[in-house]
């Protein structure tokens, strides 16, 4: 099999789903051929194949984009709505949280919302305070919605197919810095089930639980520490919520130590839920407290030097691992 980038993987997954199911369609700003297939080209080539109704370039109207996607989903279609950057969910949270996530429950199961909301974000691009936030914790705190993010191209392909298959709404978070990542193409029909984490690297001394772009850092750190004889198990959640508790707890019960890692700011982040749950459920296995690593508690700064200082880095990860192991 050939290599594909994460961006191509997403495009292939969507293309395949559109070919198989006439109800799958894309909508969002700049997504159609006339605009070059999206600002990150994830929807490129689709208008040519499936026509303008199934790849709708929209006005800058996120409430209408998500709202329309909710409506179409209620009517049995499978919309894939794009919110160009994650911070812009700020203008359409109502449609996501009060509607997409709740309509199945509030209708007593008479309706459901098979909707994928794709969005991208990421610190390290120089976009500044209003274009870089990781807001997965907001959605994770809402019943009725799945939150998914791939850390590599193969998972991107498989998770996107699974998200489109899903009969519930899914927030699908992409990281701008990961679009170029390459992997062996898992090929047509490949699916990674929602709600299943991956043990990205097996280890025995400590569990490092993460997702998205920071999986790369985690694996690099694990490599580096292996040379010093420290064996780090890296868990890639893939689905942030509802997450794969069994895999996480099994890992921590095995290693006895855990660190959570994400790009989002640490306070009240997803690492808090992981840590809280782990300490409660693995109390007897734990050799020390669960530690958390996250972005600095400030808006994302513009200047590169500050932005780099803001992101959790490998040095911090190594420091926390060693401290946890009493090798600080």
């Amino acid at each position, binding site marked *: 099999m050939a290599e594909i980038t994460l961006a191509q993987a997403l495009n292939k997954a969507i293309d395949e789903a559109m070919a198989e199911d*006439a109800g799958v369609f894309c909508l969002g700003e700049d997504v159609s051929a006339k605009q070059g297939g999206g600002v990150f080209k994830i929807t490129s080539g689709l208008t040519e194949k499936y026509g303008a109704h199934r790849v709708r370039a929209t*006005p800058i109207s996120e409430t209408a984009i998500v*709202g329309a996607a909710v*409506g*179409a989903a*209620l009517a049995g279609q499978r919309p894939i709505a794009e919110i160009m950057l994650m911070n812009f969910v700020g203008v359409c949270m109502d449609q996501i949280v009060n509607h997409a996530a709740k309509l199945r429950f509030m209708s*007593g199961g008479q*309706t459901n919302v098979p909707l994928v909301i794709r969005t991208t974000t990421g610190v390290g691009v120089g976009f500044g305070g209003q274009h870089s936030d990781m807001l997965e914790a907001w959605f994770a705190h809402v019943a009725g919605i799945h939150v998914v993010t791939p850390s590599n191209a193969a998972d991107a392909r498989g998770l996107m197919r699974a998200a489109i298959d899903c009969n*519930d709404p899914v927030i699908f978070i992409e990281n701008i810095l990961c679009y170029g990542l390459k992997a062996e193409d898992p090929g047509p029909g490949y699916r990674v089930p929602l709600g299943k984490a991956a043990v990205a690297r097996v280890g025995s001394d400590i569990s490092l639980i993460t997702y998205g772009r920071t999986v790369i850092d985690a694996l690099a750190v694990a490599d580096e520490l292996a040379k010093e004889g420290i064996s780090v198990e890296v868990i890639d959640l893939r689905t942030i919520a509802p997450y794969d508790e069994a895999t996480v707890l099994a890992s921590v019960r095995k290693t006895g130590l855990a660190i959570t890692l994400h790009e989002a700011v640490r306070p009240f982040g997803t690492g808090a839920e992981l840590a809280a749950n782990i300490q409660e459920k693995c109390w007897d296995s734990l050799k020390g407290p669960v530690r958390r690593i996250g972005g600095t508690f400030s808006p994302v700064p513009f200047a590169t030097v500050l932005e780099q200082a803001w992101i959790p880095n490998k040095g911090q990860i190594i420091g926390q691992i060693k401290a946890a192991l009493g090798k600080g």
Partner: protein
Amino acid sequence: MSKIDRAKLLDIYTRTMKVNRTDEKFRSLLMQGKVAVMYYCVRGQELVSAAAMAALTDDDYVVCTYRGQGEQTAKGIPPELWWAECLGKVTGTCKGKGGTMHITYPEKGIMVTTGVVGSGLPIATGLGMASQNNGDGKVTLVSFGDGAANIGGFHEAMNMAQLYKLPVVFLCQNNRYGEHTAFADHTSSESISSRAAGYGMRGVLVDGNDVNQVYPAVQEAVDRARAGEGPTLVEAMCYRMMGHFFGADFSYMPKEHLAEMQREDPLPKLRAVMLDHQFSEEELDAVVADIDAEIDAAVAAALAAELPGPEELAIDVFETPLVEAH
């Protein structure tokens, strides 16, 4: 004489009286303390809802609001399911989980009842998009208030619906109030329908108390939508004759204005039109008597019905029931 044929008039009359009798019944139950739930009265707006629903087929989609009893009843939700839902019973449309503000019944096209002002318009746009995508010929009607016309979602939906020429009818029931705030205190323009021009959309302003204005306007909008000619904004002027919800303070509503509006009450006007069309008093009363009997039976059944069990909390959250919320 009106342009509406007798059969359609009787249809509209029947729907109107179903809405009105349901409203009266609900208020009397609340007044007597037999039930205690949030209920948003529709007294004064019955005709608008009924005439609008009479312009749709059973399969057409409707999105409405917490003040949606009119659309829900007139579109044909079976009363026993409707009442059971309002009373929080497991036999209700939504197993008691939605309640008065979230009545849903896809079998009759009631796709969403939203409690968030203005949120229905973007959703209706999407239902219309689905119909345009799959060519099912359905029309979507979304009902909303004058107050809702000032929220961003209104604007976004109007522009998007017109841009794609979607089969959607935007029905603004201008009852002169958004909660406690009078129309002129929340809207800077003379009317809501005048905003349609800013989207290149057709806008129509009608007297919502006059069946000969409201039905033809909605029917034309529906026909155009179905023919692929795009959306219409229909504004029906009416009046909220009660407080925002049952039991709410309405001292802020000037008595004189209320009295003036009561003289425009759509019900006596509609009855006059019916009599003009040779329907007899007896015939019209018989319609109401049948409706009352049906409502009484539905209420009795709903009162007697079972409550939902706590297991319902884990069901319908996701497709797969939650085992444990970790």
